[in-house]
């Protein structure tokens, strides 16, 4: 955004606001644990995409969270969100999260399943 930022953001592979064309907010609000997975359209189109979107599409053959996308590609979390948001919009990836409304806490039924899962570890 301003030229005072690269210092603070050093160590990251790309400057966030360059990759996302100055936008810092995604159209859809995606929580960082949102699972991203490539769609059949995304698989077909991968070769035509720009570097970062292509890497995301390739990475998400294995469904993974936006946080993981961000870590693996060394993208700032906000940048990963914007890029994933764009890919959702273009139909190249699909996302899902635990609750329809991200502000909700998991309900009892889901907590029950988490408990069962933990106890069987």
């Amino acid at each position, binding site marked *: *955004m*301003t030229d*005072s*930022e690269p210092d*603070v*953001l050093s160590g*990251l592979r790309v400057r*966030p606001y360059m990759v996302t064309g100055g936008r810092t907010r995604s159209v859809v609000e995606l*929580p*960082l*644990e*949102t*699972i991203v*997975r490539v769609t059949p359209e995304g698989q077909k189109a991968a070769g035509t995409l720009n570097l970062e979107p292509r890497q995301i599409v390739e990475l998400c053959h*294995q*469904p993974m*969270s936006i*946080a*993981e996308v*961000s*870590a*693996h590609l060394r993208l*700032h*979390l*906000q940048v*990963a969100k914007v890029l994933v948001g764009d890919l959702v919009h273009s139909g190249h990836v699909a996302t*899902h*999260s*635990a*609750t329809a409304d*991200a*502000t*909700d*806490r*998991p*309900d*009892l039924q*889901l*907590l*029950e*399943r*988490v*408990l*069962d*899962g*933990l*106890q069987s*570890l």
Partner: protein
Amino acid sequence: MNNPIPVKIVVAGGFAVGKTTFVSAISDIEPLTTEAAMTKVSEGIDDFGDAKTKKSTTVAMDFGRVGLSDELVLYLFGTPGQDRFHFMWDELVRGAIGACVLIDTGRIDQCFPAIDYMENAGVPFIVAINAFDGMLRHHPEDVREALDLPRHIPVVVTDARHRAAVRDTLVALVRHAMTMAHAT
């Protein structure tokens, strides 16, 4: 894994209290790191000095992943306790099952910001004493008193290096979250 539903738990606490150790003890993967930035206009006295200069703060979070079943994946986010990182906590606690606030009884005051935050945000949380080297310097009930915690908040003893202890701590949190969900 097909389309696992993601759930998350926040692991909060002061510097070097064992958050990353706790996450890696149970994670299926080596903990990963993601960075988030906040750009803000500093107001008056701030970490960076000058008023009205645009500065950005970066916070790095370690996280791990625990597959609970084919349909369920648990993410554990370890996050530093300083007040200036609260912008990240808002996002982390949104939709979270709850938080484990890790404490080292030698430096109990380090967890105050995390506890205040979780209480104010209405996030289900438990306090987990990381018994460094199996040494429990203070009894959990003494810790509860020192922290002025209400009776319904569990205080447990854990060992951040051991998978089973970490699992039991997470179980205690999920049970507490279930009690809270029943209550509302």
